[in-house]
């Protein structure tokens, strides 16, 4: 029924108010819905993680896929505190708090050690140097290995071995060591330094191969060059 006269003005004002009420209630319900969805999603994620706890813990591949998934949808598993009754982070509550906290903390220190010395050693630091740097003789190489493993889902750090002594080195910058480079670093660890004569006495390499491998090592900062001997010598970086 349409109103006539002055009353019609009242109606249009009333209509406008009704529309705005409706829109705000729609907004509200949409917001509630979204919050609900988020809650459900978080619960599902937690459920999923709890169900697959063992796989996350034991299978690095599964773990990294899980982490990748979390990153894709914008959830940081290290920061999420979903499990309030334990008070710890989502991730820590999954993997058992105490032991992993220790390794997480150690991992942070290892990362700091690698960062602080990166410019001097090209991003390759021996485990023994890391232990010396941390100044704590209670830390073993296998602790460092566990700490580095706990960083694995995040990428960027890993452990490589070379030389006849199989000395373990922590690599903190993305780089690919060629076979030649690893071989040379191995010899360098055994003898103390490298020179073209030493290399050609030990390996049947031609001159070009030797120079290019050495040049790569120098330019990436993995060895330091000494130009004051009878021929150039190449040294592993030291812990200054």
């Amino acid at each position: 029924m349409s109103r006539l006269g002055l009353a019609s003005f009242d109606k249009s004002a009333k209509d406008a108010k009704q529309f705005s009420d409706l829109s705000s209630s729609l907004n509200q319900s949409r917001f509630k819905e979204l919050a609900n969805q988020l809650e459900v999603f978080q619960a599902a994620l937690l459920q999923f993680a709890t169900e697959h706890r063992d796989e996350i813990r034991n299978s690095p591949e599964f773990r990294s896929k899980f982490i990748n998934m979390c990153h894709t949808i914008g959830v940081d598993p290290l920061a999420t505190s979903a499990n309030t009754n334990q008070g710890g982070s989502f991730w820590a509550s999954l993997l058992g708090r105490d032991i992993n906290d220790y390794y997480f903390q150690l991992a942070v220190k290892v990362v700091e050690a690698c960062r602080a010395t990166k410019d001097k050693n090209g991003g390759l630091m021996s485990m023994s140097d890391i232990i010396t740097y941390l100044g704590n003789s209670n830390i073993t190489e296998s602790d460092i290995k566990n700490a580095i493993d706990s960083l694995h889902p995040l990428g960027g750090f890993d452990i490589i071995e070379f030389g006849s002594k199989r000395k373990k080195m922590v690599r903190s910058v993305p780089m690919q060591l060629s076979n030649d480079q690893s071989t040379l670093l191995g010899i360098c660890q055994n003898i103390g330094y490298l020179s073209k004569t030493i290399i050609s006495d030990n390996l049947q390499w031609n001159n070009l191969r030797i120079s290019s491998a050495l040049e790569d090592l120098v330019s990436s900062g993995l060895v330091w060059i000494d130009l004051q001997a009878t021929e150039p010598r190449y040294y592993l970086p030291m812990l200054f």
Partner: protein
Amino acid sequence: MSYQYPKAYSYPPFFTKQPNPQTWQSQLQLWKDFIIDWSKFHRAYRLNPTSDIDLFHNQTIDRRLSPQVIDEILKYMTDNGSGEFDSKEFVIYWKSPEEWAESLYKWIESTGQISRVLTFKELKNAPDFNDIDQFVLRKAIQVLSKRGKAQIMKVDNVEAGVKFF
């Protein structure tokens, strides 16, 4: 007690400029720290870059810095306020002019000599100032006069002393 050289001092490549720029940067930093530490221990205010001193020459391993590399290191130190050239000699700030100024002014205050005029010679009575280099002392006074806390007094156009405020 004799000077304890850093580990780097017996590392032969330390005396060769490293081609990798990042490595070179950290090498410069190591040299700067070493030079400051060495000068502080020996209370050396000045270096003659061309003279053959142990600082730049490790005779045990027969390695030395080339004059070009020494120049680069001293330039780096100048840029970051750890020293500067006074004609041919390099003055090392193992204490910065600001630090020298600070302790000088503290001494002036605590001995009630504010608004007195002191001769340059008298200033050497300040603790730790007995052997101070004239160039460094002047730098410290400049710092204070910029802050309006000191003024160099002249008699017959010759600098005679310093008045503190």
